[in-house]
């Protein structure tokens, strides 16, 4: 059995004929070939698969693609400017050494952008609580927290 699913991804309308049981992350990675969205755990724990649905951070491994029917989806590929200039949050991760292997980074950045929206002065506690759903096995989080604090300020400029 299959079903047609349509949504906007990174500003472009897309549609695909998929099996009903297709996860949103599978659609993004395997149909749309946007492999910046990662699968770390596949069990809703690590947040590597975080994307924005209608502006809000969600875990794309924990929903079927049909739950995003008609929605506006943004992935890590959709946040830099058209000329390649990094999004302020991406730039902040780069400047503050907020990544090592980079596996968790797309999910960290997508969650951070949502967290920082309208909150330029995030406290360390707010950032750490906001990262409950994102795991990093490399950095020890300190530089991620620093990156997000800087990114949030830069986004407000």
């Amino acid at each position, binding site marked *: 059995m299959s079903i047609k699913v349509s949504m906007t991804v990174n500003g472009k309308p897309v549609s695909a004929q998929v099996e009903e*049981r297709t996860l949103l992350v599978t659609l993004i990675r395997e149909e749309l070939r946007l492999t910046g969205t990662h699968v770390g755990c596949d069990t809703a724990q690590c947040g590597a698969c975080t994307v924005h649905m209608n502006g809000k951070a*969600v875990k794309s491994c924990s929903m079927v693609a049909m739950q995003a029917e008609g929605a506006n989806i943004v992935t890590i590929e959709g946040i830099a400017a058209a000329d390649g200039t990094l999004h302020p949050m991406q730039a902040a991760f780069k400047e503050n050494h907020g990544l090592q292997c980079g596996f968790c980074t797309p999910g960290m950045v997508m969650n951070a952008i949502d967290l920082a929206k309208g909150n330029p002065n995030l406290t360390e506690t707010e950032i750490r609580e906001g990262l409950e759903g994102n795991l990093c096995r490399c950095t020890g989080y300190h530089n991620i927290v620093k990156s997000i604090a800087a990114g949030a300020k830069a986004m407000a400029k």
Partner: protein
Amino acid sequence: MHAFSYHKPSTLGDALSLVAKQSEGKILAGGQSLVQAMKLRLASPTDLIDLSGIKDLAGIKVEGSSVTIGAMTRHADVENNADVKKMIPALARLAGGIGDRQVRHMGTIGGSVANSDPAACYPAAVLGLGATIVTNKRKIAADDFFKGLFETALETGELITAVTFPTVKRAGYIKFKNPASRFALVGVFVAETSGGVRVAVTGAASCVFRATAIEKALTAKFDPDAVPADTIKADTLNADLHGSAEYRAHLITVMAKRAVTQAVGK
């Protein structure tokens, strides 16, 4: 995940007729519990009936001294709602402590209450505040709703449409988080209601339950120091790799004290 058919009705009537027709089907709310269960093949419904297209099921309404939260209202919307924050701050805080922000953007109160996960937070608020579960058929008092491990009073084909919470004098909720899942290893909700003190415990047994001995002690004196120690027998509690039954029994006392401290604003 096993294959299934997907439906997205736009009215409650259509949803109910789909539910009646698909006896092996399941309702899909936020999917934060169900989709993972399906991936593990712990659930293999033939059909998913997605309630997210039914506009009337989401939203928060204040009527007199009660707050009614539609079944499809997301945890983040309860956490951030001005009326809930003002009228039942403990409920807003509880919603804001569920899982993580990504989960709170999708998960719903109806899904959480219908699921009756032994470690879930909302059941503690529903039972602790003496809320009423509204379904397409009837109104069910919290005291009659939670029946056991993932078991509720809901009948086949019955659907939660909303949960109505009375406002209370004061209330508090504290959970000892499982550090990996953020679910409650033990969570205690205390409330001073017009009908007396209520204390609901989650995470400790097969489903949420009322701690009557603690209620009695707090009725005499609503103070953290009034919480009696070891009133709940360990042999009725869960033991797993995260904590023994004795540890959970001890945590109930400690969480109850902290919840009262939060409620009295000390």
